[in-house]
């Protein structure tokens, strides 16, 4: 198991000891005296990257006493051409690794982008907050040299198929309820670390990233008649924990590393600038089919309550076998830390909860431990507001800029969903084709082998 602490660090040369990171850290994993350099307790840190987002202790380009910038860039796995200022709290990047891979002709480079990336990437090029630019993103990825531009949103639809069915199965069997979502890797780390006894409540589904990854190297390889060994599976995520997730041992059900490397939204922007691509004037291009096609449900995974809403759109029809009367479930769209609701599906009263920000999870987990929790399905997102506010997202200079950005990104995602023709995961034709040709049926043997995983208690292990 790769130790996690190499991914998240605080540069003691730059840290001024202001401890603003300590305030936002959901795990209080940042220790140190006030005004003295802080350091990250890797046994507690779940790699959510909120500290990286808030840290303002930058390295002045004119302070000769500091280690030269070139060395710091290499330390942080960043491209030399990156011009933005470096801050004390940082996540180790892999842009160099991806750049080399893109340059090599033997590899067959496949990429997937998370739902939250397409509403934030443009901000790194000076676009207004939350600009929705999936077309330019796909065009940029092709110009970077990716052979296949697929999409995590396809994986999201796939996750809904599996997780939706898993929920219905648990409810009908009345076992292991409430069920928690499992797509947020930091939340999984947290559960493994702090509440190992509740691990069986977590959905056994892998995250959309890992599902897409395993499909690319199996089904994808087949339809492209490509030797999976030569496939390089990269993912662009708004998250600093996804890179850790793809290195988990168990994430190799395709016989190879399902996802070889993960870049954050910021790193993708840096790669684009490094290549000299004029992002603003790129034409809109589509994602490659079939594994780049996605529904509105997949698209809204990026924001808090999105997974819940997508799941309910499908579960309703699984349970009642009738079309859901309303697509938009507004109760999950407000901004509070914990939102609860009761959805009537046929005669079943589905009680659901949505947790935004890991700090809000503790209360519900205690209820579950004590058996007092009456919810069936609970969505947990570590970052307040969901992945659109992830650790790898464009970092803002001013606190109010950040709130404004999260609001606009959320609006853009729901706007994007409302515009798509297909808005339920199970109506995604390519998903249906995947099951017919390859997976069989949800929770089936093939799905179980490729799309599901187990969790391991790891109290203070890494």
């Amino acid at each position, binding site marked *: 198991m790769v130790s996690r602490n190499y991914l998240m660090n605080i540069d003691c040369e730059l840290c001024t000891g202001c401890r603003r990171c300590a305030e936002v850290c959901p795990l209080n994993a940042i220790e140190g005296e006030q005004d003295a350099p802080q350091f990250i307790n890797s046994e507690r840190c779940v790699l959510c990257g909120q500290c990286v987002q808030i840290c303002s202790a*930058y390295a002045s380009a004119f302070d000769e006493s500091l280690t030269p910038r070139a060395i710091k860039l290499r330390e942080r796995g960043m491209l030399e051409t990156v011009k933005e200022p470096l801050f004390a709290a940082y996540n180790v990047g892999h842009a160099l690794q991806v750049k080399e891979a893109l340059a090599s002709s033997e590899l067959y480079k496949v990429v997937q982008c998370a739902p939250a990336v397409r509403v934030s990437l443009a901000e790194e090029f000076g676009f207004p907050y939350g600009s929705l630019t999936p077309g330019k993103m796909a065009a940029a990825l092709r110009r970077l040299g990716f052979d296949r531009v697929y999409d995590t949103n396809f994986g999201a639809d796939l996750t809904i198929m599996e997780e939706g069915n898993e929920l219905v199965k648990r409810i009908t069997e009345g076992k292991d309820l409430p069920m928690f979502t499992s797509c947020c890797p930091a939340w999984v780390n947290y559960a493994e670390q702090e509440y190992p006894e509740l691990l069986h409540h977590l959905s056994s589904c892998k995250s959309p990233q890992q599902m897409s990854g395993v499909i690319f190297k199996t089904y994808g390889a087949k339809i492209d008649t490509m030797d999976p060994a030569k496939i390089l599976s990269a993912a662009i995520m708004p998250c600093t924990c996804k890179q850790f997730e793809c290195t988990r041992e168990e994430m190799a059900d395709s016989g190879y590393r399902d996802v070889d490397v993960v870049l954050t939204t910021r790193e993708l922007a840096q790669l684009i600038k490094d290549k000299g691509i004029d992002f603003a004037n790129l034409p809109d291009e589509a994602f490659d089919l079939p594994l780049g096609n996605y529904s509105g449900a997949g698209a809204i995974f990026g924001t808090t309550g999105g997974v819940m809403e997508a799941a309910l759109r499908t579960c309703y029809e699984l349970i009642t076998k009738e079309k859901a009367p309303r697509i938009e479930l507004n109760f999950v769209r407000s901004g509070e830390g914990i939102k609860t609701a009761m959805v009537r599906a046929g005669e079943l009263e589905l009680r659901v909860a949505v947790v935004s920000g890991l700090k809000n999870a503790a209360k519900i987990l205690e209820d579950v431990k004590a058996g007092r929790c009456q919810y069936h399905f609970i969505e947990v997102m570590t970052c307040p507001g969901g992945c659109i506010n992830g650790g790898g997202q464009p*970092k803002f200079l001013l606190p109010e800029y950040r709130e404004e950005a999260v609001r606009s990104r959320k609006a853009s995602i729901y706007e994007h969903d409302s515009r798509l023709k297909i808005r339920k995961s199970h109506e995604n034709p390519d998903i249906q084709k995947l099951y017919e040709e390859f997976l069989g049926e949800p929770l089936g043997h093939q799905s179980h082998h490729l799309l599901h995983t187990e969790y391991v208690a790891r109290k203070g292990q890494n």
Partner: protein
Amino acid sequence: MSGTLNSFVVANPNQCIGCKVCEIVCFAVHNKNNQVAMSVGTIAAPVIPRLYLVRGETFTMPIQCRHCEDAPCANSCRIGAIKQEDKRIVIDENDCIGCKTCLLACPFGAIDLLPQFKDGEAVIQANLKEESEFGLEEKVKTIAYKCDLCQDHGEPACVTACPQQALTLVIPAEEKKRRNRQAAVNLLSALN
């Protein structure tokens, strides 16, 4: 105290935690022409703040220009690049020739001499070259930077951005009135 005195921003060392948000924000607000938008990724030029965090054993706080009424920097500027404009001491960055005199003149160390950037690129001098072993190399223009009280953005950005509200815009005339009143009130309680 006449109302025409210059205001200035001052930090309270007990509130300040040394997080440098003020420095970053000051740079961002002054570099819109360098395509610096809201996010860190859009910053192409090195961060050049106009206030400077000072950290010692027992204190930490930013130091910036006090917009002195008899500004020593302006009086020492041989080409008159430093002027008073609507109650602010402002440096005309295009006139500045980097002669460093104002650096010596300022008792607070509130002025720094750093490269000039336009549209994200360092400004190159028209003619001065630097003799090096590879022949004559272009020379970046270096100019004096100091706080201009956010001349064209209204309220000083550092004051609003400071997470600890450690920075305050002092308006001398009002400040005096406020303190006088406070002193009078204290007097009241002291006497009876």
